[in-house]
């Protein structure tokens, strides 16, 4: 304890302070072996909250529906974007290596997205 004695009466109890401090020191120095205590605590903890099995398919379906809904709601925009992209691609000279790189990039992105969507929690 770091505080000063409280009163003259308390100061007269030096021996009691010594005894209490000696006992406290002994107890702080003694390490209690775990002896399975941590394992018991961990067993007693509530189970981790698991996501329901239907969550991922439902989410995927929801995203698909949302995508289709957007595509249907903005048909003219989509067609314009598709035309512009096609025009860009046609207007450029694309090498075989470029096409291969594009396919690899697209494949990697698809694989990554699938892995993220289907990963275990």
């Amino acid at each position: 304890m770091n505080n000063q004695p409280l009163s003259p009466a308390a100061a007269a109890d030096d021996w009691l302070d010594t005894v209490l401090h000696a006992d406290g020191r002994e107890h702080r120095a003694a390490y209690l072996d775990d002896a399975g205590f941590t394992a018991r605590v961990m067993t007693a903890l509530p189970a981790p909250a698991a996501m329901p099995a239907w969550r991922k398919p439902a989410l995927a379906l929801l995203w698909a529906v949302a995508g289709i809904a957007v595509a249907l709601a903005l048909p003219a925009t989509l067609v314009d974007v598709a035309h512009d992209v096609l025009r860009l691609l046609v207007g450029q000279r694309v090498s075989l290596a470029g096409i291969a790189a594009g396919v690899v990039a697209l494949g990697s992105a698809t694989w990554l997205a699938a892995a993220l969507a289907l990963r275990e929690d």
Partner: protein
Amino acid sequence: MAESSLTDAELIARVVVQDDRHAFSELVRRHQSAVRATLRRLTAGNHALADDIAQETFMLAFRNLRSFRQESKFSTWLYRIATNAYLADARRRKEELLGDRDAGVADDEGGDVPSAETGGPDPARAATLSLDMDRALAVLSEGERAAIVQCYHNDLSHEEAAQVLNCPVGTVKTHILRAKQKLRSRLAAWKPH
């Protein structure tokens, strides 16, 4: 990174954000000795009861970890939970506990007493003192015992003990004074002649 190399704050963050059970088990492993030792003192040497309350303490800590604001040390927060759990349990068991311990203390009065000196790392003396201390602490009220344990056993200042016990500093000082008045006669055998 291995859990054992992380600080308490980092482990707590892992538990709160990722529900990382390994991180929590490392926290339990780190603090179990101090919490169980404190509770053994508070329960005046009842190891089984102390371990039950210690388990409850860590369960409560796990459930309430999000509310830990890191304004105090994690160990101080654990002491607070442990002390509250002990006091709640003591209220439930009050009559039974007081009856048992009063009988135990009365039986031991007048028995063999150790010599009065307290210096020197003698295991037998330390064990005897520990037993005498358990018996002496048993006559204190829960509040007095908690104040003595926090200030002497856990070496907290009055201010820190007040934080743990959730009471004003003045109350801690009063508990200590009253406890010492009672302990003076119970531990008289340890007074140097």
